[in-house]
C-alpha cells in the first residue's frame, strides 16, 4: 500500500475518536499489518493491544520502536514509518516524522567557556527520552536554546520541524518546565495559568483542566509563593501542559520531590509518551531516568557522549563482574588473579571478580578443584554505565560517540 493511501485517521488520537463519536473502530482491528507495507504486526502485551511490525521492517526509522498502540479502539500513537503524513493529536495534517525535537550541531559559548559543543541529537515521539549528564554538562543551556531563549553560536534546534519561535502558538507545540517555581509568589496558581493561557488564546476551560490534571484544585486560588517544591513542580507541569503540546520538555522535574511526587511524575511522563507525544526530560540521576526513559541522550562537558536506547546502553556496560562464594579464598586468588583480573573480597567468603567471564572462572576453579558455593555474573547497572561514560568525558575531555542510534 502506498504511503498516500494510508488512512489519515490512523493518526487520530482520543480527541478525534471522541469527536467521531460513533464507537466504530477507526482503524482495522487488532493484528493488522503495518499500514505502509502490509507486513503483519506482532502482538505484545495483553491488556493493551500493541503491535510492532516485524524486525528489520524496512520503514522503521532509526531510534524509537515502530509501534502502533491501540487502546479501546483508540489509536494513541502514530505508526511510525518514514515520512508518513496524517492527522496529529489535534487533527491537523502533519508529517509525523517531524513531530519531535531535533538539535543539529548546536554550540553555545559563554566567553572562553564552551557550554554546549557541536551537539546533535533528536527526541522522538511516543517515548520518553532521558537527557543525562553531570551537573554543568550543558543540559539546561541546551534546553534554553531549544526553547529559543538563548541564541546558539552555531547550529540550530527545531521543535516539530521548525524553530519554536517560528510557530504561531509555541505553547501548543512545546510545553516546557525550566524552573520549578517560576511564578510570582503573590499570584495565585490559577491566575498564573490564566495569564499564560491568555497569551495564546487558550480557553479558560483548559486552565481548570490542567489544574485538575496535576491535582492542584484545592490550592489553585492560593498565592504560589506558599507552595512546597512539589506543588511548585506540579504548577510548572500544569503550565507545560496548558497548550496541549505535542512535545514536552522538562528540566530536572523530580528534583526535590517526595517519593509520591516522583512516582506521579514518572507515571505522567509515561502517559504523555503513550499518548504519542515527544517527551524530553533532563536529569543528572540515571537511577531515576532508568525507570522511565526508553532512549538516552548523554552529554558531558557540552558534548554528546551517547545517543542510545536503553537496550543499547545496557549492552554498553563494559565492566562485568562475577560474584563468587568460596571457603577457599586464598587459592581462588592464586588461581585467578593476574594483572588484568582483580579479585576483591567483599567480606567473609564472597569475592567479586572482574576481568574474567563466569565461564572462564568456572572452568579454572573446577580445574583447580576449588569448592564454589555460588557463581553469579553481574552486569553493570545503567547507573554504573552512566557514571563510567560521564567520568570519561570529564577526565579526558574525550569525544566518544557510542552506538549511533541503530
Amino acid at each position, binding site marked *: 500500500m502506498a504511503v498516500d493511501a494510508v488512512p489519515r485517521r490512523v493518526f487520530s488520537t482520543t480527541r478525534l475518536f471522541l469527536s467521531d463519536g460513533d464507537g466504530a473502530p477507526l482503524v482495522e482491528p487488532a493484528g493488522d499489518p503495518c499500514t505502509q507495507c502490509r507486513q503483519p504486526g506482532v502482538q505484545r502485551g495483553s491488556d493493551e493491544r500493541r503491535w510492532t511490525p516485524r524486525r528489520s521492517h524496512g520503514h522503521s526509522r532509526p531510534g524509537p520502536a515502530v509501534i502502533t498502540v491501540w487502546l479501546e479502539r483508540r489509536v494513541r500513537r502514530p505508526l511510525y514509518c518514514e515520512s508518513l503524513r496524517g492527522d496529529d493529536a489535534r487533527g491537523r495534517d502533519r508529517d509525523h516524522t517531524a513531530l519531535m525535537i531535533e538539535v543539529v550541531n548546536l554550540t553555545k559559548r559563554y566567553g572562553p567557556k564552551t557550554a554546549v559543543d557541536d551537539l546533535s541529537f533528536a527526541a522522538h515521539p511516543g517515548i520518553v527520552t532521558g537527557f543525562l549528564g553531570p551537573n554543568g554538562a550543558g543540559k539546561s543551556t541546551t534546553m534554553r536554546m531549544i526553547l529559543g531563549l538563548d541564541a546558539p553560536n552555531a547550529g540550530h534546534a527545531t521543535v516539530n520541524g521548525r524553530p519554536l519561535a517560528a510557530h504561531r502558538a509555541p505553547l*501548543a507545540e512545546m510545553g516546557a518546565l525550566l*524552573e520549578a517555581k517560576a511564578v510570582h509568589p503573590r499570584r495565585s496558581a490559577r491566575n*498564573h495559568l490564566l495569564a499564560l493561557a491568555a*497569551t495564546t488564546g487558550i480557553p479558560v476551560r483548559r486552565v481548570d483542566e490542567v489544574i485538575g*490534571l496535576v491535582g492542584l484544585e484545592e490550592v489553585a486560588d492560593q498565592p504560589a509563593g506558599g507552595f512546597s517544591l512539589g506543588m511548585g513542580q506540579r504548577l510548572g507541569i500544569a503550565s507545560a*501542559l496548558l497548550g496541549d503540546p505535542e512535545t514536552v520538555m522538562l528540566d530536572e522535574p523530580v528534583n526535590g520531590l517526595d517519593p509520591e511526587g516522583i512516582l506521579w511524575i514518572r507515571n505522567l511522563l*509515561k502517559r504523555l509518551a503513550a499518548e504519542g507525544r515527544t517527551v524530553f526530560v533532563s536529569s543528572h540521576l540515571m537511577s531515576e531516568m532508568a525507570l522511565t526513559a526508553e532512549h538516552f541522550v548523554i552529554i558531558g562537558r557540552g558534548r554528546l557522549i551517547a545517543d542510545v536506547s536503553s537496550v543499547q546502553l545496557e549492552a554498553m556496560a563494559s565492566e562485568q563482574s562475577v560474584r563468587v562464594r568460596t571457603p577457599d579464598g586464598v587459592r581462588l586468588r592464586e588461581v585467578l588473579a593476574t594483572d588484568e583480573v582483580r579479585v576483591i573480597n567483599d567480606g567473609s567468603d564472597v569475592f567479586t571478580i572482574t576481568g574474567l567471564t563466569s565461564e572462564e572462572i568456572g572452568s579454572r576453579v573446577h580445574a583447580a578443584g576449588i569448592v564454589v558455593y555460588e557463581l553469579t555474573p553481574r552486569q553493570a547497572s545503567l547507573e554504573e554505565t552512566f557514571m563510567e561514560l560521564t567520568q570519561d568525558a570529564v577526565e579526558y575531555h574525550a569525544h566518544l560517540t557510542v552506538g549511533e542510534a541503530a
Partner: protein
Amino acid sequence: MSASTSTTTSVPSPTLRPSETDHLGVTQRRVVKAEWIKLRSVRSTVIGLIAAVAVAVGLGLLFSSFAGSGQGGRPERASIDPLSLSLAGFNLSQLIIGVLGVSLVAGEYSTGLMRTTFSAVAGRLPVLWAKSIVFGGATLVVMLAAAFAAFFGGQALYGGAEPTVALSDPGVLRAVVGAAAYASGVGLLGVAIGFLLRTTAAGIGVLFAMLLLVPGLTGLLPDSIADPLTKVLPPNAGQAFMSVADNANLLSPTAGFLVFLLWVVGLLVAAGVAVKKRDA
C-alpha cells in the same frame, strides 16, 4: 509496576478540542490581556497603585490646607503657586509608580517567569509593548483621577486666604493632566529600566538616580553646559508641562512634553533592542 503501567495507559489526558486549537496563536491583543491579568492578580501591585493615588491626593490636600490656613512654611505666599501645592503629592507618588514599573518587570525576571513568558511569546517584543500599554494605561487612568481629586480638593481647602486657580485658567488643565501623564511616564521609564537591567535593586537605583540625583549633580558643571542639560532631564522636562509658573530654567510646556516623551520612547526602544538581542 503493574499499577503504574495501568495508570500510564488507561486514563487519557484531557486535551484541547480541535475547535479550540484552530484559534490558538499569539497576538499583541492577547498578550495585552495576559499582562492585564498579571497586573490585577498581584495584590501588592494594586496596593501600590492605591498608595500612589492616596499619596498624590492626601499630600496635595494636606499642603493646600496648611497653606490655606496660614500655617504654610513660608510667609511670602506670593511665591507659592496654589496649583503646585495641590499637585505636591505627585512628587512622591511618581516615585512609587516608578518603583512599581521596575519591579513589575524585574520581578518577573528574578522568579524566572520571564523565561516562561518569552517561550510562550517567542517574539518577546509583544511582552514589552503589552506591559507598557497595560501599566502605562492603568497608571494614567488612576493618576488622572488622583490629579483631578487633588486639584479640586486642594483648591477648595486652600480657598480661604488666597485667590485660587480654576481649571479654566490658562495652562491649568494642561498641568493637571500633565501631572498624571508624567507619573505614568515615570512608570514606563521604570518598565523600560526593568527590562534593561533585569534586577529590581539596580533598576530602582538607576531610576532614582535619574529622577533625583542627576538633576542635582548638573549644578557642579559650568553653567554653559548645565543649563541646557538640566532642562532636558526627565524631571525638569516634566516640570515644564506640570506647572503654570513661568520659569526661565524650564522648557516650554510643549517642548518639555516632547522631550519627556522622547525619554520614555527612547528607553522603551532601547529595552526592546536589549530584549530582542539578549539571551533571556
